[in-house]
């Protein structure tokens, strides 16, 4: 097998990994600050794709790219304030179960509204075609996905590290009681983080739509991938999730090349290995409330 085919698949894996990173980052944020294992994360991802389909029919792809994540975030705000808020003080298991029920209901509601078969979602005109870099051929769209993901990741990083909102979030992941003793109310921050987290999932959904299609089961399919990434990268670690997302993308790209049937299974095996050997992942921190 020529080396450059391997490299090409690895690179492709990286490109695909980039929107996984966006998805997983959202999940990790909700995990770290809210303490919630969001099993409905895939549902928000799917919702992002579906909303994008609706918006792009009227306002084009770029409109969808901008508006769909916002729509998903808005729905996230409503759910957090009405329902999730009651569960923070309880056993984390209860919130996990709630998000599980939400995932169930959400997938079905997608079927109800848009039908059980997939929706067609082509690559937008402006981004079709290939770009040639030496011997390598890349689809323009995938490079665009990489660019948007990079912007999103960078934006998150800036938000978390250069704004006072981010300061409160970072402090709150370690000692929420002390944050309150400094005069800062945490509940609006929790709502905002949940909205941001699911908004990122929606964004990943929009980006994946032309690549993987839009169908009701897309949420559940990608959910385990998102968990694998967060677990490998480590809870509470920003860059850990980024590296893990790219790693998972590359591993997938390679296994698809060498032994396609094992592609998914290898990912889950990796997750099992990490959970058994080093549950806090590559770069994560210890969260006692999860143990």
């Amino acid at each position, binding site marked *: 097998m020529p080396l450059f085919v391997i490299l090409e698949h690895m690179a492709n894996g990286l490109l695909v990994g980039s929107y996984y990173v966006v998805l997983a980052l959202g999940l990790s944020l909700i995990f770290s600050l809210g303490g919630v294992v969001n099993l409905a994360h895939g549902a928000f991802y799917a919702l992002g794709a579906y909303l994008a389909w609706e918006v792009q029919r009227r306002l084009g792809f770029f409109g969808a790219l901008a508006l769909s994540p916002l729509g998903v975030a808005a729905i996230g705000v409503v759910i957090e304030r009405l329902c999730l808020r009651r569960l923070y003080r309880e056993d984390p298991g209860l919130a996990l179960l709630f998000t*599980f029920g*939400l995932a169930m209901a959400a997938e*079905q509601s997608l079927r109800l509204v848009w039908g059980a078969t997939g929706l067609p979602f082509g690559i937008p005109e402006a981004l079709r075609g290939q770009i040639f870099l030496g011997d390598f051929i890349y689809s323009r769209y995938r490079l665009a996905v990489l660019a948007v993901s990079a912007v999103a990741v960078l934006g998150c990083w800036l938000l978390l590290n250069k704004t006072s909102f981010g300061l409160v979030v970072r*402090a709150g992941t370690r000692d929420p009681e002390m944050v309150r003793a400094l005069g800062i109310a945490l509940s609006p921050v929790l709502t905002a983080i949940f909205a941001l987290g699911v908004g990122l999932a929606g964004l990943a959904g929009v980006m994946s739509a032309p690549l993987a299609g839009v169908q009701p089961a897309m949420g559940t399919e990608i959910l385990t991938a998102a968990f694998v990434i967060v677990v490998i990268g480590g809870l509470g670690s920003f860059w850990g999730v980024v590296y893990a997302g790219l790693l998972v993308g590359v591993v997938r790209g390679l296994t698809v090349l060498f032994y396609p*049937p094992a592609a998914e299974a290898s990912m*889950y095996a990796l997750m099992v290995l990490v*959970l058994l050997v080093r549950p806090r992942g590559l770069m994560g921190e210890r969260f006692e409330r*999860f143990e």
Partner: protein
Amino acid sequence: MSPSRLRHPLLVLAGALLVLPLAMRAIGMTDGVATEIAIFCLVGLGFNLLLGYTGLVSFGHSAFFGLAAYAAALLQIHRLPGHVLLPIVFGTAFAAGLGLVIGFLALRRRGVYFSLLTLAFAAMIFSIVFRWTSFTGGENGLRGMTRPSLLGVPVESQLSFYYVTAAVVFLAAWALWRVVHSPLGRVLLAIRDNERRARFLGYPVQRYKLIAFALSAAATGLGGSLFAFLKVFVSADLVHVAFSGEILAMSIVGGMGHFLGPPLGGAFFILFREILSEYTAAWQFWFGLLFMGFILFSPSGLIGVGGRLLGPLRRGGEEAAAMAARVTPEPGQEVPEFFRGAPVVPGALLECRRVSKRFGDFTAVAEVDLTLADRRLHALIGPNGAGKTTLFNVISGMYPPDGGQLLLAGRRLDGLPPERVVGQALARSFQITNLFPSLTVFENLRLGIQARHPRRFDLWRPFTSLAAVHEETQALVRFLGLEGVEGAPVASLSYGGQRLLELGLALAARPRVLLLDEPLAGLAAAERERITALVRRLSEHMAVLVVEHDIDRVFAFADRITVMNEGRVVVDGPVAEVRDHPKVHEVYLGHGRDILFADAARASSAGAGAAVLRVSGIDTFYGKSHILHEVSLELRAGEVVGLLGRNGAGKSSTLKSVMGLAPPARGRIEFAGRDIGGRPPEEIARLGIGFVPQGRRLFPNLTVAENLELSRLRRRGSDGVRWEPERIFEFFPRIRERLASRAETLSGGEQQMVAIARALSGTLRLLLLDEPFEGLAPAVSEAIFVSIDRLRREVPILIVEHDLDLVLALADRVYVLDRGRITHEGPAAPLRADRELRRQVLWV
């Protein structure tokens, strides 16, 4: 809980199974649907063994269901065509084996990680089954199964297959019923309620969890095998991860707290599916909504809803609970039989030789030598942070020591896990009540006694058949004085009752060495008397080591006392020697050294102004523990007030009550003319109260600059002093140099400065300091002292500190707290100068 004969769950189940096909036909459903319901009842029961009874959330059961189905199908198709029973048995056994393997791996983690592991396994297995089409047929599945006869009955017709299935389901349910009521089953409940305490009773918890996991997998597998024959077809859909979720949803909707809950949920799920799918394709949507509704409003499921509707018809339980809350236990005179008669062990029964324990950089226990003789009451005292509880934790096996040895009757104890330590007849009680909340008083104690019994792994015979265990439990109940309330749930006991039960749990292990961690904490005087008498009686039969802060009583009841300070033993000897030992006085009362550098500042202090903070008669509780009793104090502008007292007196709790972190149940707290009692902490902080907590609690992942910036975000009031960064740096020049360092890299002294600076940032009208000198070297303490002293002119300060020399030099006035009450109030100067007065007010 003894349901009347007619309401016995197994009879209800049998009745339901008998009439199910008729009921189904009546609403237009097929016998196949009835069979599916029966199978799902079984799956629910098996799953609930893990969820409701052991407290483990597994997403992996789709694997057991589906792979058992495949195992049965493949065996029949390839090896035993025409057989039905053997494939079913094989499928079940296969699932059990798989359960052992997956369980062994997944149970190495707990909580959310355990659940994620089961999810990963389920997803992995599904993707393998889905893709390995040559073996499994993938989506399209395997055909070629037949269903001629089972257990001698021809089952080609749906109805006859139903009745045979129902019989199998009933037998399995009966078996599970026996498991749940066996000694092993009761331990599962304990693990669900409080896994750690179960270990400290002596149960090897991992083994129990694994057995439960394997049994659960087997029951699910049996259901899967039956299902394969119901449909006479298997496909990858049976292994789909979503099915795990459906099993979970069924169990919760039905009600995981009751044996019949999940079967009810299973029936509900299938009927819901069958009926609603005639009207809409979106039945799963409605079920999902329903599931969410139950989580939010009735986590105890349908059974819980039913219970609440029927609630007014059942009074008995409530009365018992109310009585339990009022009864004050009167411990009996006679120590139970099973404690007596052990031969006296000469010399040292428990020995600690140069035991050390470190946590990162911090040395909690340093080279401690301690010897405990048999039939002695030995007390371990010392100020906060002395390392007493850490030593207990090391001895009882919670963590291994970093150095030194532990010997019990000559045998090495160090490195053993808690359950093995208990097996060596060393038991402990906990400082914070650590019981099995959903079980009755009797059951709590019985579990402790059962842990020593050879049949504690029995999963078949009823737990009530362990007559010896029952008798010993009765004797223990009588000894503790809990007769009459043994049937009440633990949560309804009064605080005193709970503390007594806590001690009782440690006794249940029939220890030769008993470790009691603050048995008198939070108790009223009369209760303290009773427990002291009880402990003294116990020390006639075993060795007892007690950590206590109630020094008066310690001196009255102990045979021997060890005093610890900062991780080391200061003095070890009989009461008379310790009580008057100069080193002990130093530890508790300070050196009486002059803090020379304070005098200059003191002289220029202008005297107190108007009251800034007024606390009037507050009572604060931690759960049921009554920490503060009618505490009143006042803080005026321009002064520093010290809160003194021994550990556990309630000093930090007072600060927390003011700050809103532990809101008072009664009384008033007024600050700058506003009533702040019970307000949320963020509101109180915004009014201008700065809090420097014990242990500093900087945000370790943020830099110094970020820690400071955080507190500037909110406090922008107009009154009070505004602390700009420049001003703060003037007070604490060292901080300017460390602005960009992460807080976790700072030294203790630097952290303390940053913590105080953080409290100052923004607008400040009152400063609360909790143990600011804890863990600091003398030179650093001096620097901090000077800074605080300079602050007195800027802002009123309320300080809690156990180093008496330092705090008496700082404070203008002091209050002394003892066991939650103010016992002394007055100027600091007399106490500072007169050591005899100090001894009177603060010592025994």
